[in-house]
């Protein structure tokens, strides 16, 4: 008999301990049902639950009277962010273009992204040379190498951001399956011609890709669709 009473007492204590979480609605379904069942059959527990709800209401009231921070807190925060970015711009951001472009392209109509092995191999060599010229901050008025064999596909002109490193540019282009085919262009301004695919893209898809690339401001200074 004593054992049964003790078990009941423990169960009752357990349920009582759960009342605050029943009141804030964060109990799992099983515990919530246990408490609901006990509340329905135990008038004293139900009375104590009313006390919990009273405490909850007054705690909310108390906290709501504490006011809110002034705009100074937000100004301070964004000033600190600006200062930090100026010191070491986006040093910690994990640039994951592969994931982002894969998400983007998953919404497109099926299309072939594979390039012929020969063109791809040649493109890599030419691209390496071109990236070299991107990073060489000297005179860019002299036109750079050109991959003459690439005549059809989806193209854009791009100017890389001054702070972009060779690795970042290579990763960026790889993520978009893009290849630099020419540059710097005769028109000047440090522009390069890149190919985004071997087939032309519908204008809407092209616009999406361009906007997505433009968002990579750490790497892209300017980009626009090109013929």
């Amino acid at each position, binding site marked *: 008999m004593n054992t049964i009473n003790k078990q009941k007492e423990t169960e009752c204590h357990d349920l009582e*301990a759960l009342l605050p979480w029943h009141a804030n609605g964060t109990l799992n379904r099983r515990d919530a049902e246990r408490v609901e069942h006990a509340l329905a059959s135990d008038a004293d527990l139900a009375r104590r639950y009313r*006390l919990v709800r009273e405490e909850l209401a007054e705690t909310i009231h108390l906290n709501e009277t*504490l006011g809110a921070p002034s705009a100074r807190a937000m100004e301070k925060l964004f000033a600190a962010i600006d200062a930090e970015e100026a010191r070491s711009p986006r040093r910690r*951001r994990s640039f994951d273009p592969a994931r982002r472009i894969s998400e983007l392209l998953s919404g497109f109509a099926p299309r072939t992204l594979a390039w012929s092995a020969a063109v791809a191999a040649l493109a890599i060599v030419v691209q390496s040379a071109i990236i070299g010229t991107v990073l060489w901050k000297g005179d860019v008025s002299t036109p750079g190498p050109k991959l003459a064999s690439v005549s059809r596909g989806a193209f854009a002109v791009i100017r890389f951001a001054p702070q972009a490193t060779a690795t970042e540019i290579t990763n960026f282009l790889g993520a978009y399956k893009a290849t630099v085919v020419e540059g710097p262009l005769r028109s000047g301004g440090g522009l390069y011609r890149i190919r985004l695919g071997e087939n032309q893209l519908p204008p809407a898809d092209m616009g999406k890709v361009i906007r997505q690339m433009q968002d990579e401001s750490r790497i892209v200074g300017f980009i626009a669709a090109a013929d």
Partner: protein
Amino acid sequence: MQSTSDEVLIGRIANGDRLAMQVLYARHHVRVFRFVLRYVRDEAMAEDLISEVFLDVWRQAGRFEGRSSVSTWLLAIARFKSLSALRRRPDEEFDEDSAAAIEDEADDPERVLEKKDKSALIRQCLAGLSAQHREIVDLVYYHDKSVEEVAQIVGIPENTVKTRMFYARKRLAELLKAAGIERGWP
């Protein structure tokens, strides 16, 4: 229309999206401020601390693994920063254990009794709880945190969370009794 989840915002913040940072700040700064203010009891200091909390979010967003909700993560950072700030206060040698035992003397139940307002009395007695008890009551009743989330924020086992909440409520009942309100519990 469904708003962008906190987790998605954190992903964008990890990529340096300031607008996402503004949205997250707008969503949570008031609650984080109030949480911090209940520790430090100094509005200027609380404002400085919430700036630091969100700056940490900006810095560490890339490392957020989603094991807890974003609001739980924010409160855990806020708690750590508040306790660190209290320890740095030159005029107050802060010790978490002894601070837990200190109750707010400004809220003398006898004095509040004069108000004869039960709700106000309960609030006064809530404010008079020790720092440790106040913390857990706020997390459960105001910040809607589950047992597991409180355990993560405070860094204690889940059973201790339940026990501490029980004793916080018991202490509240004692304060109310001293103030003339007998609730018949515990």
